């Protein structure tokens, strides 16, 4: 087939890498043109997480005890807010069809869509969460581990969430359905992510929880794009 393709295209075809880069760049370009979508997720996280210190009184011990779980649950919910948008606009305007008949493997294209989602909705939380953590009376060591666990965890959330987004494509009222599909799968990420921060705050090593979080991330990295690509193919039939 390689001889054949050289005959077909006189101009040199783009490499897989540059095609994938273009897909990632376009998603970020589109998001920058409609910043309100990205900003909404970001501010949801900040506002919702800031409500807890205001509502629970001024007991520093109580605040720092509940901080890991509150911040992690908020990160998880804000990540989920934007999931339904991951494929829906490409589905509505026909771009997804073109992606399915691209000369690049669909799995890699899906992986780029997931990465774009993570860069736009997960990664900003990694930077802002330590600032919010200050409101919860968290110490330096805890804040570091919080950021590290969110760095791995939010990518896992985007990966796992893509399966829900792909499965519910083309269905009306997807918000709640995605939550029901995806939240049970998010449990391990939440347990190990918040667990790592909790471990530090009681003076134990976070390495165990972080390693398990890494394991969840590696599994998701391998299986989630495959599952999502299969679900997208079914949605387009």
């Amino acid at each position, binding site marked *: 087939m390689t001889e054949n393709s050289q*005959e077909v295209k006189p101009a040199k*075809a783009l490499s897989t890498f540059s095609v994938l880069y273009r897909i990632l760049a376009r998603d970020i370009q589109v998001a920058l043109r409609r910043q309100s979508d990205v900003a909404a997720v970001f501010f949801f996280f900040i506002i919702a997480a800031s409500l807890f210190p205001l509502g629970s009184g001024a007991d520093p011990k109580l605040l720092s005890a509940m901080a890991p779980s509150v911040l992690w649950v908020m990160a998880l919910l804000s990540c989920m807010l934007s999931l339904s948008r991951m494929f829906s606009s490409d589905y509505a305007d*026909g771009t997804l069809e073109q992606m399915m008949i*691209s000369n690049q493997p669909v799995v890699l294209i899906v992986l780029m869509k997931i990465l774009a989602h993570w860069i736009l909705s997960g990664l900003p939380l990694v930077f802002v969460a330590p600032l919010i953590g200050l409101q919860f009376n968290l110490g330096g060591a805890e804040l570091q581990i919080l950021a590290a666990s969110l760095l791995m965890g939010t990518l896992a959330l985007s990966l796992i969430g893509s399966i829900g987004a792909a499965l519910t494509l083309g269905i009306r009222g997807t918000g709640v359905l995605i939550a029901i599909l995806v939240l049970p799968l998010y449990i391990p990420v939440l347990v190990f992510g918040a667990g790592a921060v909790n471990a530090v705050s009681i003076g134990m090593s976070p390495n165990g929880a972080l390693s398990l979080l890494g394991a969840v991330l590696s599994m998701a990295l391998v299986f989630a794009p495959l599952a999502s690509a299969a679900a997208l193919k079914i949605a387009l*039939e």
Partner: protein
Amino acid sequence: MGFLAKNHMLAATDLVGVRGGRLLFDKLNFSLSNGTVLYLQGANGTGKTTLLRTICGLSKPYEGNVNWCGEDIHELAEDYYKHLLYIGHLPGIKEDLTALENLQFSLALSGTPFDLTQATEVLHLLGLAKGLNLPTRMLSQGQKRRVALARLWLQDLPLWVLDEPFTALDANATDMLKQKIEAFANEGGIVVMTTHQEVAMHVPKFEQLRLGA
């Protein structure tokens, strides 16, 4: 053009199309070689789009198969897609991006390098000179259609599958597109298309297929 050197063949054998439990076409057979335009006709809901999507590999046929140069397209997968240019009834255009940005992306998806001067020339030719830097949201339906169709001028692929390409185009653009399709077929390209407009084509081989008859 590059694909002249090779003989291509798109063939359907005993193709059965079912959608929503309804039989659309039964045991369809055709074989298209270089320079053929296959023109699908039929009333609404007779399965034209389903057949086009089956040819593209987007829908799996209920029975039968589609072959490209003798091999099943689902087995060829990416090796088939790099020969295929499909423009469906959805334009595949992001409304927040400009015409040039959209073109750059849709060319990248099929691995074609983007040449800014050439792309600008084609958009000028298609009468889009004024809207080059506007988000396509600002363009009319017909202009968006032209942006999607600009790929036909910029890519060098031997098989075109076009779903209602003339929709929303004015007389001038319809003529240009018709001439482009004729020139492409005369150079050895294969075209499968649907349209509700009567178009007479001057091409080496012109075939018609009426669905739902």
